[in-house]
């Protein structure tokens, strides 16, 4: 297995804040790697250190075994979380300008087709909708036929249709053999797109692996969900988690029938009970906490 990208013990100290605290990760070639974490966890800083746009306080980044440098800049494609483009410049001119900055260039027509920008080529950058703008920024990230692509919260603010469309695009890029490093706080997005994830909190990676592997490690069975309001008495003797802000109680079990039998004397309305597979959102909330971050 070839490692496309490796970060070793990255640290970033801002005055009074250790934003990134010894992050190490490695991304095998050809996968979509998700970096997840709540707001302020340090994922954008980590990714920007890896991208080379923010200097690290310490640590090193390797690209195909070499310290990331000129080759990395030529072969990496980056879509930042917030990027302003030049005013008064059209979509066509923006793509052409960024293409010219690289030695290796994507075919212009293929790129336009891939990102569905055909009808927007002569439109001023300022007059694009959120989804159109994200597609343009993705096209800019792909102008050099990148071997490694960084997507930093690419679907934030998009409507459901635009998000699905964007996922299809990302999947087609991965199918083309590129390695993707995706940061997101949408767990459904990570579940659909990522082969491997790392969950960050307080500047550290607290869990890393494939979504299936992490879910198996964390949850032994299915989740039974029932509204707190339907409880007739307390659930002493039954292991459970109370999610007060959602108004539900969760019970993780390997034997659903037995658990339901245990629960039924304490519940007034069995029709409201839900049984489901644990997902990345459960894992994320369990690892990073349910309370609102400042």
């Amino acid at each position, binding site marked *: 297995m070839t490692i496309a990208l490796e970060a070793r013990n990255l640290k970033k100290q801002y005055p009074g804040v250790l934003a990134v605290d010894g992050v190490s990760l490695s991304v095998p070639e050809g996968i979509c790697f998700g970096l997840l974490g709540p707001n302020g966890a340090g994922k954008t800083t980590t990714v920007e250190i890896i991208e080379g*746009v923010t200097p690290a306080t310490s640590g090193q980044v390797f690209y195909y075994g070499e310290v990331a440098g000129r080759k990395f*800049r030529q072969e990496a494609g*980056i879509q930042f979380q917030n*990027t302003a483009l030049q005013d008064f410049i059209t979509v066509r001119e923006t793509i052409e*300008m960024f293409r010219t900055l*690289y030695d290796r260039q994507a075919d212009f027509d293929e790129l336009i087709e891939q990102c569905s920008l055909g009808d927007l080529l002569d439109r001023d950058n300022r007059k694009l909708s959120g989804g159109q703008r994200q597609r343009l920024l993705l096209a800019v990230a792909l102008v050099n036929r990148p071997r490694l692509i960084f997507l930093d919260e690419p679907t934030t603010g998009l409507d459901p249709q635009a998000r699905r469309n964007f996922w299809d695009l990302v999947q087609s890029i991965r199918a083309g053999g590129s390695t993707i490093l995706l940061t997101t706080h949408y767990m459904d997005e990570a579940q659909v797109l990522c082969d491997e994830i790392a969950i960050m909190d307080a500047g550290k990676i607290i869990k890393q692996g494939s979504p299936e592997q992490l879910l198996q490690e964390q949850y032994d069975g299915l989740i039974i969900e029932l509204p707190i309001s339907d409880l007739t008495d307390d659930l002493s003797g039954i292991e459970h988690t109370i999610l007060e802000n959602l108004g539900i109680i969760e019970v993780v079990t390997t034997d659903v029938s037995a658990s339901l039998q245990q629960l039924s004397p304490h519940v007034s309305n069995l029709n409201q009970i839900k049984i489901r597979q644990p997902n990345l959102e459960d894992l994320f909330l369990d690892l990073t906490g349910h309370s609102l971050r400042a």
Partner: protein
Amino acid sequence: MLKRIYAIFQARNREFLRDRASLSWNLILPVALMFGLSFAFSNERDAYTVGVLQEAAEINTNDHAFLRTDFIRFVPYDDFELAMRKVSRHQLDLLVEFGDTTRYWINAESSKGYFAEIALLHSGSDTVLSIDKQQITGDAVSYADWLLPGILGMNMMFSCLFGVGYVVVRYRKNGFLKRLRATPLTSFEFIAAQVASRMVLILLITSFIYTGTHMLLDTRMEGSYFTLFLVAVVGAISLVSLGLVVSARVTSEELAGGLLNMINWPMMMLSGVWFSLEGAPAAVTTAASIFPLTHVLDSARSVMLDGATLSEVAPSLLALTAMSAVFLAIGAKVFRWGQY
């Protein structure tokens, strides 16, 4: 490397040329200033202004020999109090009323009033002074002639400092610089593209304004256009480089605006945009020589008004080149792509 510089250069040119508001401002302001000030100071050749207290709306030069005196502008007044107020404020150098007895009023604190009085008292005299008078001829340098290099230089200064300094800070603040940082583009390539773009644009605009005003106001041009162009090129490089120093690290447009104004205003006041520093204290002229605009304007005026050759303006061009080298070295050294 060149294709990357050209890509950024081209994009910046497009951005500027399509921003019609900025472009219009760059063209209209200097032209409007030039025409407005030329019109306002079109009587600059008149050294004195004398009010004539009379009923008639027009001055009749046959009324008195004094009214035929050269270099005095005579303005009729029928309101004595208004005219006296103007005398007291030095807006009139002298007020005169001709009649059976000629009466006049001057401000005792006005030096120009003193000389206007002498002219009045001698105007009717047939005294022949035993002095040897020799005359030379030559067209007067009009205020428009003198002002044109100043207006062009001022426009160049604003355009270079704000057009580069402010824009780079905006790029940094909105993340466009960070996006470029993630490409193979180097800081040298980016800076070179910005300098080249602003150079070409400012030279085009300056040439356009110069040609227009020169044709319409028939301004003086004694020297060679090539030398003048060279002065503009070297001057623009130094001013763009100064803009880059300001913008190298700053992340706030407000701070950049403040810093740029801190540089603009002393240059505008001390570099000779509006008035000559001839006769100013040595400390002021020495201080003015540290500004690139001073050298640009001195050289341009020498070429346009006195026909100075390249070798004569070479010291100023060398000073500007040295300043550019220092500014660019500092700018490149402290340049930052992001806000980190």
